[in-house]
Every structure is written in structure tokens, then in C-alpha cells.
């Protein structure tokens, strides 16, 4: 393809920008010396862990920094115009006409009490001064442009009446109505399910091409960056440490931090060994603790020398259009990197378990929530009862010492299944046995011994810790309750547990607010392990954590599992994490398990059509990886009124292979097809047909190699 040879000036040019926040400790420099350019129809990705200043950069461009934030140096030029030092009134004009923003949470950008149509049309009537009816028509056309199903009717709905993915499409449509020259997107897909995310990312690609918009894309997800960005800037502790084209950054990362990030992202490799994670030791320093006159990454760097501690490196061009902020980029060979002692847990399997008798066996488990009916009859108890079938006829078993991963989109019943087993929800029907004991009773009626053996690690450590109890008290409580150790040994045991999760004894007297997210989650894990349980349920234990911390927590969980011969059920929406972590995988859709089997079998054909779609939606942190393009239409149907026959038939992309376009799927509930004794698929399509599918992901690079 021939590109336009006319040399256009960049739409956005940021030069040595520095941004500070005024705090009561004085000015804190959140971002310093950040430079980059964005051309028309190009996406520049700003990637980094939380607290690295990504969002500050985005807000700084349009001076949305709030009353205490200010740009203290450098320049931000938009279409040749300096933005730094403009009045708010001038900026407001520019933002409305030429710069748009899309934020992480669509619900915060939409007014819940105004219909979508009114909100969209308002953009045009206010900024363009065109008539209401014309604006309405234009808004419908734009909604259709962002692939909104049933756009005309969506205009009359309120934001809460459409799904999260559709909300984000409305926000994107709103941002594009004024045909902006620059679009700033701050984690626009982070709150979305992987299948929805895939559709939104496709949309962003299309729009960039058709509207020639320059996009600044902020994200923590290296997989997303690889899919949508042309150029990438890697941020660390307020500085841009590496900048280059997406291919250059992924194939040949030059900065030790970027190399470290690549090593701690779970990859969708075909073997478990190929997906070992190597966390970066230490943590991101807080803005006020950043070293001055030294390399900010030096304390965590494997290659640091005296020079790194005494001199601040500059971002310099090492290859053509590929820069890094490191003194030794030319010398460092990422391929020769070997993990330092103790970084990677011993992942050798525990001694082969004596019995294959499953530790937990669930059969035909159903958990229904009763729904208030709106009919008058129900007031007198005569109305027909409606149920949300959160978990519907689930059967599974886990052998001792193994890990079962449960994956699916949000609302598929993963968490309800876990809560039912742990006793926080009561099953409607079915049977669940743990070590032969019945576990269908609520937790309040359970024997203390049973509670002790069944523990849980929660998704959000903040909401599961008492903010006014010290870490020692939190972990000590189960010890005292279950009498695991004599009470005079409790403190010793807590310290031992803290050490096991790589925290030292000084954490004993700290309060939760004094810990970082990763540390809190470690305390949560230590608490779950305090009672020496046999089965631990982990409900999205790492999804709120940064990648480098996530890698450390996952490795820790694996290590503890090996040491104690634990059984785990691991719930996640991230298929690459599950791949790395599990021996068995259950794929759930709308309360049903649709595929169950050993992890290797799940990630290779034959697939259930839903598993195939999930896999093809996962963003892969490798721009060269080839991935089949399967996108699910629509959203997960309501569990209140699930589709007849096969629950997946309304969205199934593979129905056509069956005679009559898959009529049987609408009518008849499929039965299990056994690919092997352990691997089963819940589908009408014969196995021979499913086996013909090609693998969804093919990476050209060697497995596990960087």
C-alpha cells in the first residue's frame, strides 16, 4: 500500500511535559519529561501499571487535572496550538469541537436520567446549533455506525436499560459525533467482558481508519495495546521509559522494565510450561519517594549499576524511532535473561496423590434466585414465581491437589457457583459433596470443621477486610476460632503465614489502608490459608491487580498449593490466567457448564463454539500472533428467561453446520459429547465436526520465548 507522502504535522505533540499535583506535603511531580506525537489515523498507546501517571498524561493534554493539578513544564501542542496556559473557556471550545474523551466507566459519562437519544442529540444541537430533528437523525446514523443493534429504539432508552458494552458504544458514538481530530481513550474496555471488549476494539480500529482520527489510548493491558496501537509509550513511575512502534516494542523491548512486563503477562501458549510468569520484584515507588538524580527503575532492575543510582538517564533513540531510558539498552540481551534465585516458585508437581477419588463432587446443582413479580396476584401469593437461574444443572468434580479453573463472561454464574459451594447461597436443588460431607447447607448451619476445610479468597481485598483491624488480628482470627494452633503460639503462626506470602513480620501491626492492593490480596490469601484448609475457592483473586503484582500473587498461590497439596477452584474471566493456573477448566455460559476437561484439551480443538469465541476474543500481547476472528453478536440473554434448547443457540456462530441451520439447537437441550473420558462438550454438533476446527491462536514465536 502506498501511503500519502504529504508530510503532515502531528495532530498532537507533547514535549517534555511535567505535571504536578499540589498536596499538603508540597507539590508532587506525578509526570515528568514525557514526550510523544500522534499523527492522523494513528493510535498511540500509553501503557503502564497503576500509579505510573498514564491518566495524568491524558488529563494533562486537555487540562482536566482538577484544582490541584497543573502542568509545570514542557508543552502540549494540538494542531500547532499551544494548549498549556490556555483559559478554561478556550479549552472548552476546543474540547467540544476537536478533542473528545472516552473514559473507563461508560455509566459515569452518561446521565442516568436522560434518554440516550437526548444525550446524543444534545451534542449536536449545542455545538453545531442544528435542529433537534436533524440531530436526532444524525445520532441514529452514528449509533448504527458503532454497530448498535436496533439503534432507533435505543435512542428512546435510558442508559441503565442497555448493557455495558452498548453503553460504551454510546459513549464512543457521542465522542465521534463532532468528528474530533483527537480522541483520548482512558481504559475504554477495562470494565467490559472479553467478548464485548473484542467487538469494541474492532470498532475502534474501523473508526480510526474511516475518520482519520488521532487516538491516544491509555491502558494497562499489553494484549489490548498489541491489538489496537501503532505506537506505544511505556510509562513507569511518571516517566516514559520506552517509546517505539508496537512491533519494535514487543519484538525487541529495550528497557528492563518493558522486558519485565512482557515476562509477567500470562500468554495463551499451548503448554503450561510455556506460560510461567516472572514477576518484577519490588513495587512502583510513590511519587514522593521517587529517586532524584537516578534511574527510577534501578531499585527493581536486574542490571542496575552504580551509575544507575547516581545519574538520571534520558530517553534516547537506540534504534530508528525506538527510544529507551536506559544507559545499557545496547548491552542488555533480554533473551539471555535468567530468573534470579527465588523469583520463580518451585512448580514441580506435588507427589502423585494416592487416591483419584474427587475431593469435591457436584451433581445437578441448581441455584435460583426468586424474582419479585410485578403482577398483582403475586401480592397475595398466587402469582407465577419467576426465577433467575444463576446456576442451572451444574455437575463437576475435582481430584485432590488439582486446580479447577472456571471461566465465562460476567453473569454466567461463576461466582454464584462458588458462593453456593462455600455456603453463602443455598442451592435450589442438586447435590454437592466435599470429602463425602454434604455441603448444600448454608454456612451458618455448617460444622466448624467443615468451614475450616473450605476457605475462600475474594476478588476485592478492600471490601473483605475490616479496615480498623490490624493485619495480625485479621489473620489471627481464624487461627483462634478454629484453634489451629495454641493461642500463645498464634502470633508466631501469623508471622509464619505472612512470611509464606512474602510479607515480613513488620506487617503484623499494620492496618489495611497502609498496604498496597497486592499486599492486601496477600493478606487475604494468608487468611484463607490460616485454617489449613483442603479446598480454597479463589474468586477472581488477581483481576484487580497490576500485571507485575498479579504474576507474583499467582506464583504465590501456585507455590502454596504445591506445598500443602491443596485443591483449588479458581474463578476468572481471563482465559490466559486460567490457562497458566489450572489443571482442569470448566467453561460456563448462562448458568450451565458448556465444556469441561483438562486445561490442555480446552485450549485446543475440538472446542465448544462458545469456548472458541472466548479464545478468539482474548487480546494477545503479541502483535504477530494470528487469531481467528469470531465475534459473538448480542449480549448474554437474561437468566430470568433463558433461551430454550441449548442456552447458547441465540449467539452461536457455529449453528449453521447443523442441518436446517441448527433448528435442533432451539428445541432440544444438547447432551454431553465425550471427546475423551475427561473432556466433554455440551453441544449438538458432532465431535467429528468440532474436531475439524482450526486452533484459534497461532503464535509465530517459539513457545514461552521472549
Amino acid at each position, binding site marked *: 500500500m502506498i501511503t500519502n507522502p504529504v508530510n503532515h*504535522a502531528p495532530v498532537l505533540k507533547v514535549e517534555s511535559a511535567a505535571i504536578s499535583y499540589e498536596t499538603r506535603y508540597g507539590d508532587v511531580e506525578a509526570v515528568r519529561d514525557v514526550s510523544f506525537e500522534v499523527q492522523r489515523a494513528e493510535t498511540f498507546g500509553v501503557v503502564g501499571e497503576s500509579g505510573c501517571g498514564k491518566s495524568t498524561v491524558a488529563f494533562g493534554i486537555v487540562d482536566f487535572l482538577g484544582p490541584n493539578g497543573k502542568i509545570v513544564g514542557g508543552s502540549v501542542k494540538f494542531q500547532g496550538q499551544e494548549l498549556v496556559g490556555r483559559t478554561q473557556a478556550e479549552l472548552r471550545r476546543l474540547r467540544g469541537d476537536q478533542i473528545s474523551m472516552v473514559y473507563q466507566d461508560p455509566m459515569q459519562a452518561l446521565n442516568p436520567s436522560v434518554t440516550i437519544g437526548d444525550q446524543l442529540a444534545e451534542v449536536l444541537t449545542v455545538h453545531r446549533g442544528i435542529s433537534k430533528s436533524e440531530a436526532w437523525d444524525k445520532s441514529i446514523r452514528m449509533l448504527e455506525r458503532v454497530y448498535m443493534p436496533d439503534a432507533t429504539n435505543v435512542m428512546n432508552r435510558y442508559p441503565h436499560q442497555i448493557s455495558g458494552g452498548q453503553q460504551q458504544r454510546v459513549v464512543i458514538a457521542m465522542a465521534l459525533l463532532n468528528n474530533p481530530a483527537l480522541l483520548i481513550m482512558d481504559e475504554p474496555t477495562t470494565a467490559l467482558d472479553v467478548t464485548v471488549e473484542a467487538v469494541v476494539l474492532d470498532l475502534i480500529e474501523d473508526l480510526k481508519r474511516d475518520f482519520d482520527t488521532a487516538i491516544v489510548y491509555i491502558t494497562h493491558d499489553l494484549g489490548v495495546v498489541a491489538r489496537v496501537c501503532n505506537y506505544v509509550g511505556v510509562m513507569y513511575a511518571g516517566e516514559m521509559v520506552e517509546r517505539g512502534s508496537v512491533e519494535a516494542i514487543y519484538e525487541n523491548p529495550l528497557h528492563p522494565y518493558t522486558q519485565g512486563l512482557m515476562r509477567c503477562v500470562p500468554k495463551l501458549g499451548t503448554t503450561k510450561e510455556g506460560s510461567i510468569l516472572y514477576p518484577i520484584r519490588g513495587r512502583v515507588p510513590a511519587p514522593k519517594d521517587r529517586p532524584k538524580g537516578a534511574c527510577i527503575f534501578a531499585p527493581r532492575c536486574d542490571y542496575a549499576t552504580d551509575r544507575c543510582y547516581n545519574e538520571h538517564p534520558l530517553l534516547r533513540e537506540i534504534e530508528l524511532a525506538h527510544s529507551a531510558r536506559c544507559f545499557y539498552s545496547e548491552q542488555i540481551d533480554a533473551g539471555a535473561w535468567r530468573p534470579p534465585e527465588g523469583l520463580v516458585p518451585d512448580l514441580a508437581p506435588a507427589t502423585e496423590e494416592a487416591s483419584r477419588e474427587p475431593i469435591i463432587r457436584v451433581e445437578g446443582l441448581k441455584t435460583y434466585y426468586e424474582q419479585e413479580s410485578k403482577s398483582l396476584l403475586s401480592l397475595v401469593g398466587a402469582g407465577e414465581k419467576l426465577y433467575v437461574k444463576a446456576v442451572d444443572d451444574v455437575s463437576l468434580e475435582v481430584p485432590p491437589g488439582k486446580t479447577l479453573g472456571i471461566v465465562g463472561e460476567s453473569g454466567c454464574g461463576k461466582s454464584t457457583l462458588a458462593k453456593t459451594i462455600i455456603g453463602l447461597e443455598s442451592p435450589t436443588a442438586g447435590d454437592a459433596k466435599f470429602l463425602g460431607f454434604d455441603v448444600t447447607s448454608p454456612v451458618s448451619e455448617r460444622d466448624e470443621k467443615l468451614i475450616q476445610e473450605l476457605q475462600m479468597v475474594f476478588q476485592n481485598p478492600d471490601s473483605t477486610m475490616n479496615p480498623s483491624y490490624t493485619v495480625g488480628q485479621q489473620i489471627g482470627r481464624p487461627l483462634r476460632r478454629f484453634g489451629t494452633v495454641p493461642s500463645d503460639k498464634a502470633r508466631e503462626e501469623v508471622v509464619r503465614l505472612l512470611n509464606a506470602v512474602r510479607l515480613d513480620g513488620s506487617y503484623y501491626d499494620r492496618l489495611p489502608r497502609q498496604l498496597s492492593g497486592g499486599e492486601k490480596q496477600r493478606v487475604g490469601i494468608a487468611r484463607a490459608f490460616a485454617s489449613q484448609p483442603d479446598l480454597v475457592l479463589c474468586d477472581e483473586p488477581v483481576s484487580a491487580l497490576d500485571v507485575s503484582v498479579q504474576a507474583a500473587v499467582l506464583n504465590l498461590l501456585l507455590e502454596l498449593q504445591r506445598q500443602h497439596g491443596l485443591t483449588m477452584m479458581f474463578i476468572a474471566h481471563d482465559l490466559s490466567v486460567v490457562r497458566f493456573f489450572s489443571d482442569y477448566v470448566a467453561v460456563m455460559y448462562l448458568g450451565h457448564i458448556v465444556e469441561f476437561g483438562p486445561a490442555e484439551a480446552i485450549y485446543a480443538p475440538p472446542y465448544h463454539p462458545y469456548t472458541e469465541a472466548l479464545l478468539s476474543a482474548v487480546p494477545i500481547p503479541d502483535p504477530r500472533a494470528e487469531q481467528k476472528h469470531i465475534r459473538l453478536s448480542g449480549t448474554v440473554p437474561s437468566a430470568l428467561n433463558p433461551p430454550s434448547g441449548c442456552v447458547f443457540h441465540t449467539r452461536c456462530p457455529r449453528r449453521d453446520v447443523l442441518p436446517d441451520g441448527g433448528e435442533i439447537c432451539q428445541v432440544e437441550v444438547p447432551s454431553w459429547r465425550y471427546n475423551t473420558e475427561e473432556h466433554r462438550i455440551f453441544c449438538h454438533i458432532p465431535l467429528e465436526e468440532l474436531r475439524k476446527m482450526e486452533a484459534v491462536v497461532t503464535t509465530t514465536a517459539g513457545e514461552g520465548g521472549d
Partner: protein
Amino acid sequence: MFVKDYMTRHPVMVEPTMSVVEAQGIMAETKVRHLPVTGSGKRLAGLVTRERMRIPPTELASLNVWEITRLLSNLAVKDVMVKAEDVITIEPGATLEDAAQVMVENKIGCLPVLEEGVVVGIITEIDLMVQLGDLLGGRVTGVRVTVRVPDRIGEFAKITSAIASQGWGIYASGSVPTPKRPGYWDCVVKVQDVPKDELVAVLEKIEGHELIDVREC
């Protein structure tokens, strides 16, 4: 080949109230020669060019340095711009030759592209030249031949079929009436990945055609 495909979307624009000095700075920074002036909602208010912002030499001679500075600092874009009603514009759906025609007739170098009064792009003589070059394959290497053919239906097809029969592909082509030779057309074709001699041999066989020029470029 429509204007909307070859125009520059999101052109650099200025506001009517901006000072001329600042607008000159933007021109220098972004290396553009024409700035559409827009009010609220990107509606066209006018157009400024480099010439427009120059002080006429006759006036310049009568001013001293301080007066020039004062004159410039008080001057806003709206004082020097061509007003919207006098700006010649074009629609995104127009063809490139339409755009060329309009520019030639009015002897101007750029056309703001308007959709319902809103500036959606700008197309300049440079954009047209890029397309002229690409039309004749100026940016790819290959053998470029110029053939003079009689003004009759089917003559150009003889060239294309002769080339196609050899399994070669024409990358670019164009033909114009031969200057000062009524009754003849000059056809230019660019063929990639072909030995020059073989191509010449094939084209020379065609009756009534004259090979004016062959070059590898």
C-alpha cells in the same frame, strides 16, 4: 477518486479572534499554508493564507519598527481573512477533477471541504499533485512507456491486451490528447517486473502505434 478520499481530514484551523502573530506561528509550526477560520461548531468563517497576513510593501515602507509591531499585535485573524462568503469551497462527494477545475478557474491553491457548512477537510494543489503522480505510478519502479496512438476507439485496448497476453500487469496508466497534434493521443503505461526489451518488442508489433519514449524509473 472523490475529494473525501484524498482531502486532509481534521485540518489545522484557527479562530477569528486569534492574533495574526499567533496564526503565523501555527503555520510555521505545522508547515501548512492555508488556515480555515472557524467559529463555534467548526462552521467556516473565513480563510487565511500566508499572503493575506503579509503587510503590503507600500504600507511597510511608511512604517517604522515600532509601528509594525503595534500594527501586528492589534491585528486579528478576522481582520485579514477572506470572509466565508468569498471563500470558494467544495463538497466531499465531488470528484478530484472537479476540484482541479475549480482551483484552476479561480487560480487558487486550496479548497476547504464543507459538509452542511461544517469544515470536514481541506484539499490543496499538493493533494492533487500527489494523485497525478500516483495516477502514472510515479512512486513505484518499473518500465514507463509513452505510446502515440491514432484517435480511434479500441487503440488503447490494443496496448492493454498486448501487455496482458504476456501475463504482465499494468500498474498505472493515463492518456491525454497529444499536444499540438490533433488526431493523436499519448498513452502512458507503467508496467512492473518486466524486462524493458521484451516490453518494447511486444509494443512495437502493434500497427499504427509509435513508441515515443521508454524509460525505467
